[in-house]
């Protein structure tokens, strides 16, 4: 692309993921005749995720968190800047990153097992090996006995477990999760969060988790990166010092939990001045609330 500053193909780093000066600009047209208007989805985002870390991106809708995830996946290209995994520039999708999407995106014509094995087929893993791996991950997400069911026979929570198993099966070192629990009910959501932490601890993956729920962010993350919209900017990274292993009841009811939640809520409230002047800007407090997970 013209005008883009060349970024190095490789960098020296200890971090698992390095997001370097990512800016993403879209050209939007409201009507066909209107000249394209620039929309800055992401502005100068810098972020480092350590190996084995659980980092949560939190922000209201429109803050560019999904765009950032698409760039990390390699499905979208930033306007400028680059993403590095293990110091190597991301140029496209690959099996070193597993992705879990909000809408499950399970293949309805494939059984649970066949869904879990999809990435392995792409990787050309022999059939017998595939079977052993899928057995393992179906067990890990607690779906023993459901291997031969089709997605439409499963509940929302079970579908999301299959999606997680599918992303883990081809053994990516990084797991990218885009609001994976947004579509399930509150109870299922909490148990899936518990389960995700258990899986994370068992597998040692590096997880980058996108959510609009502050509760969820604080409960899951080692650190929470707070994004504010118009344009999507990284406001602050909050370190979550809550002890692990975390449990739903204990962790959520602790004073520190409430305190951190409050802090992040304030960060989102007092978004930089820029956003206040933006057309149609929704007050951040309306777009996101500390109880968004309920």
């Amino acid at each position, binding site marked *: 692309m013209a005008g883009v500053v060349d970024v190095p193909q490789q960098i020296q780093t200890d971090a698992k993921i390095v997001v370097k000066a990512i800016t993403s600009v879209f050209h939007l047209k409201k009507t066909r005749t209107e000249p394209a208007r620039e929309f800055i989805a992401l502005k100068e985002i810098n972020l480092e995720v350590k190996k084995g870390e659980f980092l949560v991106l939190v922000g209201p809708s429109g803050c560019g968190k999904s765009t950032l995830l698409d760039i990390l*996946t*390699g*499905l979208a290209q930033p306007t400028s800047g680059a993403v590095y995994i293990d110091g190597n520039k991301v140029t*496209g*999708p*690959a*099996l070193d*990153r597993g*992705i879990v*999407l909000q*809408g499950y*995106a399970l*293949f*309805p*014509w*494939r059984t649970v097992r066949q869904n879990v094995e*999809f*990435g392995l*087929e*792409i990787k050309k893993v022999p059939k017998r090996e595939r079977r052993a791996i899928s057995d393992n991950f179906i067990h890990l997400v607690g779906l023993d006995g459901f291997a031969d069911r*089709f997605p*439409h026979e499963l509940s929302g929570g079970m579908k999301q477990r299959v999606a997680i198993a599918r992303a883990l099966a*081809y053994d990516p070192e990084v797991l990218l999760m885009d609001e994976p629990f947004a579509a399930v009910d509150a109870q299922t959501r909490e148990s899936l969060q518990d389960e995700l932490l258990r899986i994370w601890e068992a597998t040692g993956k590096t997880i980058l988790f996108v959510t609009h729920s502050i509760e969820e962010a604080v409960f899951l993350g080692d650190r929470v990166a707070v994004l504010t919209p118009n344009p999507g900017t990284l406001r602050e990274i909050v370190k979550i010092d809550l002890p692990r292993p975390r449990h739903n009841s204990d962790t959520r009811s602790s004073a520190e939990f409430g305190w951190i939640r409050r802090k992040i809520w304030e960060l989102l409230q007092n978004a930089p001045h820029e956003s206040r002047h933006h057309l149609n800007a929704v007050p951040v407090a309306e777009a996101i609330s500390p109880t968004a997970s309920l």
Partner: protein
Amino acid sequence: MPTRAFVSPWSLSRWLDRSSLLLFFAAWELAPRAGGLLETFIAPPSVVLMTLWELLLSGELCDHVTISLGRAIAGFTGAALIALPLGFLLGGNFRTFERIVTPVLRFLGQVNPFSLFPLFIILFGISELSKEAMIFWVCIWPILFNTITGVKGIDPLLVKSARSMGTGVVPLFFKVILPAASPGIFTGLKMGAGTAFFMLIAAEMIGASCGLGWLVWNAQINFQIPKLFAATVVISVLGMILNMLLVTLERRLLGWLDSSPNH
């Protein structure tokens, strides 16, 4: 999937299910015996069966069925070979072009095949090709339109999810696009096959020298009422078999489809 409880084909409830059919055949058998016009114009099933047997023994029936099926298959296959790739291209890669040409295609799809048949005869003579062209014409539209709809309706999230796993273009087509579009494609093929058979008989009645449609027509002008009925029965039975095959195939291929109303 729950296995259905086994019901003996000879049980009372099964006979009850078939009772309307049995009554129909009984009435059919008895009515012509009442004499009068009915006797002249209706051949009872016993006579029809005997005629069928004779046609079968002489080999005549077999020939007509083979010829008719051959025409239907040729026209249908030709239509599928063109409509499927075209549907994938229009529904997938060339959406804007599809929007532009759809009105023309819709219009062509509405052109009555019977009004085109004289044209086909002028072009291809009373050869096999004129009948096959007619079948081709009636098959291509439902297959094309349903394939386009099927491909356009693919959940982009599925494609995104597959692409995020580094799926290449060829595996993406065979492992994602094709199965995801298959319900639409199958609807098109099913509609095509149904109309193909329907139109074939009509085409053979208008311009042919053999085939099941011709058999009906020929029996009519020669006033061979039992033969006319025999041919009609064969056509109905073939239609039922075709339908059964399609339903079975649909169950095998699209069993994964969620048929529950809350989705």
